[in-house]
Each structure stands twice: as C-alpha cells, then as structure tokens.
C-alpha cells in the first residue's frame, strides 16, 4: 500500500455514507436534550428553594419578634439565605461543561480551569457562606442575651454554631481543596498522557 495521504484519503473514505435513520436520531436527541434540561432545571430549582425556605423561616421569625435587635438578627439571617442561594446559582452557571465549539487546546484548558474555579469557591466559603450566617446567628444570640440576661444560653448559642462553622470551614479549605487539587492534577496528567502517548 502506498501511504501518501492522497492514497490514504481514498481508503479512509471508502466505507462511504452510513445508513442512518435520521428521524429516529432526531427523536432520540430531542428526548435526551429535554431530559438534561429538566435535570438542570430541577437542580437549579432545588438550590433556589433551599435559600427561599431559610429566608421564609427567618422572615416569619422576624415578623413575630417583639425586640428590634432580634428582628434585625432574623432579617440578616433571612438575607444571608437569599445571598447564599444567589451565589450558588451564579456558581452553578459557571460550573457547567465548557462550550465544545472552541479549539481542542482551549477546551482542554477550560476543563482544567473549571477545577480552578471550584477550588476558589471552596477557599472563599468562609466569606460567602459561613460569615453571613455566623454574623446573623451571633447577633441573634446577643439580642436574646440582652433580653433575658442568660449569659450561659448566649454562650452556648454562639459557641455551637461557631464550632460547627469552624468544622465546615476546615472541611472545605483543607480536605475539600486538597481533593479538588488532586483531581485537577489527575485530569491534567490524564490529558497529557492521552494526547501524547501512543495508542
């Protein structure tokens, strides 16, 4: 066999056009696409609903509170719930698969960059997730202490969320980030080995 590309091209194209049931393919693709859309919509709805639920509960608490500081604490926590839902929603838009109509080099880089964005999200979890909620809950505890004067209850109300939030902070910033960094390195070396290693 003469292996010039012209010769190879003739061999490459020799099987000709395959027989395809175009109607079936279109039907299948539309069905899969709709299923994916429904799945994404459900996930988005779930995230929004979580934030809305937290906001609704604390808004109700705020509406029934007699003390203005307690009301402010509840309102702050309700606003934090809305903020977190908004932030997660915004992030979920960034998290989606990179567009596939870019060059292969750009696409590979975009796959790796998606890990970088997830790592940045975990590293900043203390600011966008933990801090707003902690401030709201701590404010509420202090407002309750001002009313009741029960400093033990106040201390417990501050210490319990602080410990839980500290644990969440550590889980996100230490094992969480390390896990994603490992996955990113794995993906990078897998891409490298697949692209350059002979089959």
């Amino acid at each position: 066999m003469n292996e010039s590309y012209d010769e190879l091209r003739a061999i490459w194209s020799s099987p000709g056009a395959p027989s395809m049931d175009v109607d079936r393919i279109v039907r299948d693709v539309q069905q899969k696409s709709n299923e994916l859309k429904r799945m994404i919509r459900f996930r988005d709805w779930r995230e929004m609903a979580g934030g809305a639920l937290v906001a609704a509960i604390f808004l109700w608490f705020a509406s029934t509170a007699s003390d203005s500081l307690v009301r402010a604490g509840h309102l702050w926590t309700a606003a934090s719930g809305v903020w977190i839902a908004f932030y997660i929603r915004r992030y979920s838009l960034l998290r989606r698969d990179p567009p596939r109509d870019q060059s292969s080099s750009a696409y590979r880089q975009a796959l790796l960059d998606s890990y970088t964005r997830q790592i940045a999200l975990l590293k900043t979890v203390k600011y966008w997730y933990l801090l707003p909620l902690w401030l709201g809950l701590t404010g509420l505890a202090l407002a309750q202490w001002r009313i009741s004067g029960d400093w033990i209850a106040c201390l417990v109300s501050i210490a319990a969320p602080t410990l839980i939030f500290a644990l969440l902070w550590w889980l996100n910033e230490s094992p969480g980030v390390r896990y994603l960094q490992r996955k990113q390195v794995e993906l990078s070396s897998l891409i490298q080995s697949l692209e350059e290693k002979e089959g």
Partner: protein
Amino acid sequence: MSDDSNPANGSREETFRRLLRDFGAAIQRLANSYEADPALREDLIQEVYLALWQSIPTFRAESSERTWLYRVAHNTAISTILSSNRRRHREQILPAGFESASKVESAERTLIRDEQHSALLHAIRLLPLIDRRIVTLHLDSLSYAEIEQVTGLSQSAIATRLTRARARIAATIGTKENRQ
C-alpha cells in the same frame, strides 16, 4: 437568537438534519478512530449528536460550519474518553483494536478495500490522540488553516505531526503486511 433556531441556517431541527446528511459519514469515521469497541463507539456517536444539537443555537458563523462541527465532535470525543478513562484503563481498548484488525486478516473473503480500511484504522488508533485528531481531520480534507482552528495548534506543528504520523502509519501498515 432564540433557543431553538439559528438564523443563518433555519430551525434547529432542519440544521441538525442537514448536518447529519452532510457530515454523518465523517462523524462515524471520527468515532471509529477514537473507539474500537462497537458499543462504546455507538455511545460516542450518540454523545456527538447530542453535543451538536445543544451547540447549534450558539453557532455564530465566526468559523465555517465544518470547522465548528469538527470542534464540537472532537471535544465531545475528548470529554467522553476522559470520562471513560476515569473508570477504566485505556489498555483495555487496545485488544479490541487488534481483534478488529486480526478478524480482517483471517477473513480471506473480505474485500481488499475493506482490509486496507481496517489496516488504516488500526494504524490510526495506535497514534497518540493529538496526532490521531490531526490525521483524521487531514484525511477528511480539512486544510491546515481549518485544522489549526479545530485543534488550536500552529500550522507548522500540524505539518510536523502529519509527517511523523504518516511515517508511523506506513510502518504499522508495513509491519502488518509483512506479517500476512
């Protein structure tokens, strides 16, 4: 632009049908070069169809329709292979490739053209992914400029890799013919 249409090319469904008609064979060849296993190949083809369907509304005519299609198809293949490689080692693909070639070797009644095609496919599958992509694009008659748009590699790098790949293909096919 609405979610379901592309002004340049009519409705999404019309565009998709036209792409299948014009590039159906090229998509099958592309999938052939990535996957030797028929079931995995069929899965890959379905993934490419779905990716094309989802990408049609975002086509901006900044590149030709052909380079756009090859970008989507090759990136989908990369994504699919990366996903499957996280589940299994790539070595498992190779025996299937050899099996496919050896079946042809043992079938005396197989037409020479089919045998040559299988041998070529076998040789292409032995190339590194990046060379495989360039060679299949070149065999589908894309110009160096178009291959550059699809892969992001410079035209000189493409030329170097094509020359090297041709030598490897020749060596693989030569070895195979000598064995027969």
